[in-house]
């Protein structure tokens, strides 16, 4: 939760599934977080001011770029943004790559929303 007086910084959501994206935005907004949501990694990279992003919740399976590819891209840009990766099938390969990219957490769908809430709550302001 952002403390009063602090500048508003955003939690970015990138998921191509409208229902998942909108519901997650709903949940995080009610929890008091400012959220910006994108339907694809490309849209996110084009439209989002990366300086304003506190943390990123991204789906792994998306058209264009995968969640891991997006993370890799951010790291290449020198961004150490905390990332939570959501995937239907957290395979060993995905977990290993996620660890390499310094991804904080990998959640399997359907996930316990308290895990996401905790991730967002613990983000640096």
């Amino acid at each position, binding site marked *: 939760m952002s403390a009063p007086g602090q500048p508003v910084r955003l939690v970015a959501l990138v998921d191509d599934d409208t229902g998942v994206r909108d519901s997650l935005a709903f949940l995080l907004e009610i929890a008091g977080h400012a959220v910006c949501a994108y339907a694809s990694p490309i849209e996110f990279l084009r439209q989002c001011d990366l300086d304003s992003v506190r943390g990123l919740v991204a789906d792994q399976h998306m058209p264009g770029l995968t969640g891991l590819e997006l993370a890799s891209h951010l790291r290449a840009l020198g961004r150490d943004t905390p990332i939570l990766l959501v995937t239907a099938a957290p395979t060993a390969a995905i977990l290993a790559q996620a660890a390499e990219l310094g991804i904080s957490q990998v959640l399997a*769908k359907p996930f316990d929303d308290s895990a996401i809430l905790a991730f967002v709550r613990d983000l640096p302001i």
Partner: protein
Amino acid sequence: MKTLFEEGDASSILAILDLAPAMVRAFDGRILHWTGGAEQLYGWSASEALGRLSHELLQTEFPIPLADIEAALLSEGVWHGVLQHRTRKGEVLRVASHWSLQRDAGGQPAAIAEVNTNIGPQAHADAARARLSAIVESSQDAIIGKTLDGVVTDWNPGAERLFGYGAAEAVGQSITIIYPPEQATEEVALLERIRRGHAIDPFQSTRRRKDGSDIPVAVTVSPIRDASGAIVGASTIMRDLRAWINRERRLNDLQAQLAHTTRLSELGQLVAALVHEINQPLTAIRNYASGLEQLVRTGNYAAAPRGVTGIVTQVSRADAIIRRLRDFVRKGAPTVQAERLDGIIDEAVELATINPAAKGVTVNVDLAERDARVFVDRVQIQQVLFNLLRNAIEATDGRDERVLTIRTSISEGGVIAVDVSDTGPGISDTVLAELFKPFVTTKSAGMGVGLSVCRTIVEGHGGTLTGHNPPGSGALFRLTLPTEAQASAEADGK
């Protein structure tokens, strides 16, 4: 002693004739000439045979009294018949014997030229007859002889086993004892054709056993002719088709089971895709519900409608997924009816693209006629399209351009074709050769029964399924289906 051929003027002809087993003897039987062929056949040399009485030397047994043969010879000049001779070694021979009477200048009988052709020992003929008889006796098939009036004359043990009547019971009876009453006219027609000398092609029919049960049989009927060639009766061979029909039925059941199993294995893959797909609305519902819970706790309902609407939308979405799955699983008997092709295609596309592997795939549907109808079992044809689309999706995996095109066209004959093409690498030559054979697959996880079952399904509908690589693109599968008009035209024609 004077022989008829002591002059050498026809020596070359005689040399050839010498190869034939022949003799010339006086009317009283004394041997005057004995060929090399005769020596070879009987074992006696010319020097041993000449001057001997031929019937003594060869211990001839005649089919009719010798006097009758000689009478015939004197009146006709020739006689033909089968004789039994003994060789020097004592072996019994059956010979076809041709006698020709030679008369002297005064017209008096002078000599007999006799040419004998070995037609095998008596034992051989007997054994052949015995073997033939044993074959009939031991045949699994029913072999029945009957007169042209349909009276049973012969009834082998196979017939006893098949129909339950003993030979003693059946012989002398009308053949119609083994007919179901409603089929007795069949026999009249059969006998009529046999009488006219027509051959009857093997056919399938039903016969009744002594116990009253009816059995399916394959029937072959052929005319029996006597020595003069006149048709005197008919032989009927009947084979019990029960085991064969059972096997056919079992094979059909197996094929149906295979189709069902394939559907189930597809179902397994579909379920994996559906698990993913249904996780999405479940995840969303959970998020909305958690948010609403938070709102309830704080008493701030301003944002509540968004959450409630979200939940309702996502529940409908999950419901639709489950309904599609249920439609796919439903097996039952195929129900063929007029169906809109566009609806079938749309649903198959929807099912196939649920798969996460289909992400990034563009599906173009190009219909020749929006509301064309085909006469098919909707679920089965959807399954075929689902297979083709899924294969196409897999084929484009990892390609820059992932486009599937479904194009329909209607030919002049009213046949509708559905082409499913992709931008994949195409079908390799080795696979192309065996594309529709079962258990041929390019997929590491596939059983390779998909396309063969697809073809079975399509052919069952009177359609065709073919695959090739058109120039400049990936694979193209063409499925043809009967249109409604075509199917009803066929039904009227029956």
